[in-house]
C-alpha cells in the first residue's frame, strides 16, 4: 500500500502521533463535548445545553474585565521585559572578559528554578511581616507594604517574577544566535569606526531578527497559559484580581466543580491563543523569508 519511503516516514512519526492522539486530541474532544453539556463533577447529568456555557463565560464580567486584560497585560509586559533584559545580557556575554563563564552560569540560574520554587522565594521576600523587602523599606524610613494583597503590587510582582524566570531563556537563545552571526560585517564596521549603538541598530538587530521573532512567539504562547507562579504567589487574589486565564478555567472546573463551564472557558482561551498563534506564525514566516 505504501512505498518504502512512505513507510519510513510514517514510522518515524507514528509513536509521537499516537501519544498526541491519546493524550491531547482525545482529551480536547472530550473537553469540547463537556463544554456543551451540563457537567458538574458532583452531578454529571451530561444534558446538552448548547452554547450556554460559552455565553456565560463570555458575558462574565470577571472574565471580560479582569481575566482577559490581566492575561494580555501579563503576556505583553513579561515577554517584552524578558526580551529586553535577555538581549542586553546576551550582548554582554557575547564580548569576552575575565570571569565570563562564571557570570554566564549565574545569569542562567533562574532557568533551573522551578516556577513553584521561584514563587515561594518571592512570597518569602515580599512577606508583609518578615520579608526582606519590607525590612529594607522600613530601615530606610519608608512604610512597608502588604505587597501580595494589593492588586497592582501583586500583579507587578507576578510579572517581575516571570521576567526573572524567563530572561535566561532569551539570553541563551539570543547568545547562541549572536555567536552564529557572520564576523565580517562587524569587522568592516569596526574598521570604519562605527559607533557601538549604530552597530547594534543596523547590524546586530536586523541579523538577529529571525531568532528574536521565534523566541518571542514561543514565549508569548507560553506566557498566555501561565499558571504555576500565579497559583503559588496569590492564587489569583486579592479577590480574583490577579487571575489569569488558566487559573480562571482551573477554578471553574476544580474548585467550583463545574467541568462544563470550565471546559468552555479553557476552550475559549484556547481559541484566542490559536488565532494569535496563527497570526504570529505568519509574521515569523514573513520575517524569516525577508
Amino acid at each position, binding site marked *: 500500500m505504501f512505498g518504502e*519511503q512512505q513507510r519510513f*516516514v*510514517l514510522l*518515524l*512519526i507514528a*509513536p*509521537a502521533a499516537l*501519544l*498526541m492522539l491519546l*493524550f*491531547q486530541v482525545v*482529551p*480536547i474532544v*472530550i*473537553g469540547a463535548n463537556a463544554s456543551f453539556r451540563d457537567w458538574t463533577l458532583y452531578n454529571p447529568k451530561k444534558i446538552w445545553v448548547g452554547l450556554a456555557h460559552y455565553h456565560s463565560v463570555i458575558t462574565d464580567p470577571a472574565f471580560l474585565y479582569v481575566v482577559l486584560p490581566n492575561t494580555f497585560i501579563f503576556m505583553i509586559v513579561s515577554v517584552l521585559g524578558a526580551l529586553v533584559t535577555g538581549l542586553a*545580557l546576551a550582548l*554582554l556575554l557575547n564580548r569576552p572578559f575575565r*570571569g565570563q563563564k562564571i*557570570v554566564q*552560569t*549565574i*545569569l*542562567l*540560574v*533562574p*532557568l*533551573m*528554578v*522551578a*516556577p*513553584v520554587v*521561584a514563587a*515561594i*522565594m*518571592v*512570597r*518569602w*521576600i515580599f*512577606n508583609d511581616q*518578615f520579608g*526582606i523587602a519590607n525590612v529594607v523599606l522600613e530601615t530606610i524610613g519608608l512604610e512597608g507594604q502588604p505587597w501580595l494583597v494589593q492588586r497592582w503590587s501583586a500583579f507587578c510582582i507576578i510579572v517581575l517574577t516571570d521576567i*526573572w524566570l524567563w530572561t535566561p531563556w532569551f539570553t*541563551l*537563545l539570543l547568545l547562541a*544566535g549572536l555567536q552564529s552571526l557572520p564576523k565580517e560585517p562587524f*569587522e568592516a564596521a*569596526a574598521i570604519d569606526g562605527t559607533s*557601538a549603538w549604530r552597530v547594534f541598530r543596523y547590524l546586530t538587530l536586523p541579523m538577529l531578527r529571525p531568532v528574536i521573532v*521565534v523566541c518571542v512567539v514561543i514565549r508569548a504562547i507560553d506566557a*498566555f497559559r501561565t*499558571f504555576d507562579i500565579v*497559583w*503559588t504567589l496569590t492564587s489569583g487574589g486579592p479577590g480574583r484580581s490577579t487571575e489569569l486565564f*488558566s487559573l480562571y*478555567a482551573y477554578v471553574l*472546573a476544580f474548585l467550583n466543580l463545574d467541568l462544563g463551564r470550565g471546559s468552555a472557558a479553557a476552550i475559549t*482561551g*484556547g481559541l484566542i491563543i*490559536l488565532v494569535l*498563534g496563527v497570526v504570529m506564525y505568519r509574521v515569523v514566516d514573513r520575517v524569516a523569508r525577508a
Partner: protein
Amino acid sequence: MPMVTRPEFLPGLPNWSRKTFFALGLAAICFGFAFPVLWLILTSLRPESGIYYVHRGTEFTLGNFKEVLGQERIVEAFINSAVISTLATVFSLLVTVSSGYMLSRFTGPAARIWFGTIYVFRCVPYISWVLPLYFVVQSWGIYDTYVGLLLPHIAVHICFFSWLMKGFFDGIDPSMEYAAMIDGCSRWGAFIRVAIPSALPAISALAVLCWLFTWNEFLFALILTGNRVPVITVVMAQFVTEMGLHWNLMAATAVMALLPAFLIALFGQKYVIRGLRI
C-alpha cells in the same frame, strides 16, 4: 590586514576606571539575579527562632534539612519526581528525535501536515486539555500512577522538542546519510548510525531541558496525581498553604528541589549553549 578591535565600553574614561565600572556593573547584575536564590539558601540555614529576622543573627544550622528529610511524604515526592523526570526524558527523546528527523529530511504533504499539527498543538494551552485529561486517565485506571503522569509528560514535549530537533537536523548536512545509503545502509541504518551520532550534542541539550522541564512541571502533577504519587512541586505548593509559618522548612525543601536541577544544568550547560542554535 589591520588589527580589528571592538568598540570599547565607555570610551571616554581611562582604562582602569572603565574596568572598575564594568566589574562593579557586572557584580551588581549578578547579585540582582542570584539574590532570590541566595536569600532562599540563607533562610534554609537559619534555625526556626531566627527566620523571622533572617537578616540578623549569625546562628546557622542544618537542622531544617534533617527535619524535612525526616518527613516520609517529602522524601517520597523527591524520589517520584526524579524517577518520572528521568523516564520522561528517555522516552521523550526516543519519540521526538525521530519526529524531528522526519520534519527536517522530508518535504511533501506528510511533513507539512505533521508540522502544522505540531504547531497548532503547541499553541493549545495546557489547561484546555489537562482538565478533560483528568477524566481520560481516570477512566483508563491510570489516575495517580507513574504511567498516568509519565505519558502526558511525554506527549506535551512532542511539539516543542520536535520543532527544536528539526532545527538541529536542518543544521546537519544530509550528504553523509546519502553516502551511507549508497554504500548499502538502509534508511533506518542511515538514521540511527549516521544522523543520530552527529546530532548527539543537540540531543544532550534536549535531554537537559527535558529533565528540567519535567522536574519543574506543576499543573499536570497537580491535576493528574493525588496522594499515591506525590510530586515535589505539588507538595511544595501545598506546603505554602499548610505550613505557611514554617518558612525555614519551606526554604530547606525548596533548596533541595533546586539542587538536582542545578547539578544537571551545570553539567549540561555547555551542551545546551552549543545545541540551542535555532
